[in-house]
Every structure is written in C-alpha cells, then in structure tokens.
C-alpha cells in the first residue's frame, strides 16, 4: 500500500477502513479528461454532416462512459463476475437490436433481383 494520502484528506485517518477498497485513480485527472472529451463532443457537433457528427460524438461518448465505469465506478478492479453481468446486458441489447432492426428500418435488399 502506498503512503500517498488522497488530496483533501491529509488530516484524516489514513488506513482505509474497507478491507476490499480498490484504491483510487486520480479522480481529478479523470474528471478533467471527461470535461475535455465533453468539450470535444460539443465542438464536433459543428461539423455539418450528421453521419460524421454521429460517428464522432458517439465514439467520444463510449470513451467517456468507459472512463466513468472503469475509474469512478471502479469496474477496473472488480472481479470477472461484474464484467460478465454487464456483458450479459450488452448481449441482451445486441439480440434486441438484431431482432428489431428489420421492423424499424425497412430492408431494401433483395435476394432475388426485383423484376
């Protein structure tokens, strides 16, 4: 265990009381990185083409969401069971997309060319 004390807690008790405390990322750095990505998202929206905007901002959202999950929610230090739980949710979502896609977006390709 490092002897480094978290910022703002220098005068408090030092030994973490929770035996399974995962430690802490530098939360301030993560927060600042999130704000930088947030600013990039807003700037990207000024690009004219909606499809390009969508690809850029959605990719940034995935990065931001992953940062919150990994560092603020400590997923990085959680056992595999939690990863499996979230994986199951994503799998359910994938089935939902594949199942509903033909109903929402009309399929315009034909196996046999239209006469």
């Amino acid at each position, binding site marked *: 265990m490092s002897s480094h004390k978290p910022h703002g*807690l220098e005068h408090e008790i030092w030994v973490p009381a929770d035996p*399974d405390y995962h*430690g*802490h990322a*530098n939360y301030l750095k993560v927060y600042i990185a999130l704000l930088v990505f947030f600013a990039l998202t807003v700037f990207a929206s000024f690009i004219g083409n909606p499809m390009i905007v969508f690809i850029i901002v959605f990719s940034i959202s995935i990065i931001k969401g992953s940062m919150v999950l990994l560092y603020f929610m400590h997923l990085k230090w959680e056992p595999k069971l939690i990863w499996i739980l979230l994986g199951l949710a*994503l799998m359910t979502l994938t089935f939902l997309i594949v199942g509903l896609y033909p109903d929402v*977006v009309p399929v315009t390709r034909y196996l046999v060319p239209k006469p």
Partner: protein
Amino acid sequence: MNTTVSKKITWRDIPQARLAVWTLIAGEFAIFGGLIVMYILNRIKYESWGEMAQHTNVIAGTVNTFVLLTSSYFVVKAHEAAVYRNKAKIKMWIWLTILCALIFLGIKTYEYSHEIMHGFTLPGKHLLAEGKNVDTMYWGFYYTMTGLHGLHVVAGALALFFVMRGVTKTGENYHRIEAAGLYWHMVDIIWIFLFPLIYLIH
C-alpha cells in the same frame, strides 16, 4: 491512471449491496440501451427527426451535461471520504451532488415548459392545426428517454440523501455510500449517451 492500491478481490468477496447495485445497473443498461438504439434507428429512418432535434435547447443540455459530470466527481469523492470514515466530508460531497441533481432537474423543467409552450407535445395538436410540421413520434421518444432519465435522477438523489443521513447519524453501513454512488454514476453514463444524440445531431 495512477492508483495507490491495486488489491483485487474475487467474486466471493463482493459485498452483497454492491453486487445488487451492479445487477440493477446491468438491467438499466439494457433498458436505456434499447431506447437509445431504437432512437438511432428511427433517426436514420426519418429525416424529420433531424429537424425536430433543432428545437431542443442545446445550451440547457450542455449545462446539464457539465452539471452531471461534476456530480459524478462529487460522488466518487464521497465514496473516498466514506472509506476513511470521514462524516463531515461525506456530508459535504453528497450535499454538493444533491445540489447538482436539483440544478439538473430545474434546467430540465425549464426545457420541458418551453417545449410544451411551443407546441412540441405528444399529440402536437396545435402545431398540426396550424399546418406546421411536427413529428410526434420524435417527441414521444424525447419525453420518454429524458423523462425516464429524470426519474432516475430523482431516485438517485433521494437514495444519496437517505444513505448519507443514515451513515452520518449511526456511523455504520458506510458501504451504502458506494452502492448509492454506483447508481448515481449509472445515471451520469446514461446522460453521456443521451446528450449528443438528442441535442447535437441535427
């Protein structure tokens, strides 16, 4: 990122409260994920959704995103304070988070009132009667996604308040701060995806 401790626990050691909240979060991701995917597919299908999205208040959405990101930082600091059993800091960080929740809800209420006043309602009768173009399905999705998210903000703020009150009064169950905090982060993650989709892609 720099970490001070890297102790890994096994699945047998996960506290029940944390496991329960993670299970809830997995379910919530499937629900909101479904809504988001359906929104994207419909957005691709209907050109008019882009026009409708131009009527959302981008500044309000941007401020709200900043508020929620900041609240996520406050909550993780509250968790850190809970680990060190520091009641005063727990109170401070949780109150700041609740303040963020109230700001978020206030801005959202302002947005809703303006949109409803301008006729962007689920039936959209006034605008249709005036011969104006209104895609009511877009606004159906908009109110469902943001409304459901708003309810989660209310639930998260209430959970944080009651957990903080219990912990600071009794000096027990500090782990509940982390559990309620996890829920709050989930609310933040959902907004991270809703914000660009609803407000920025026209």
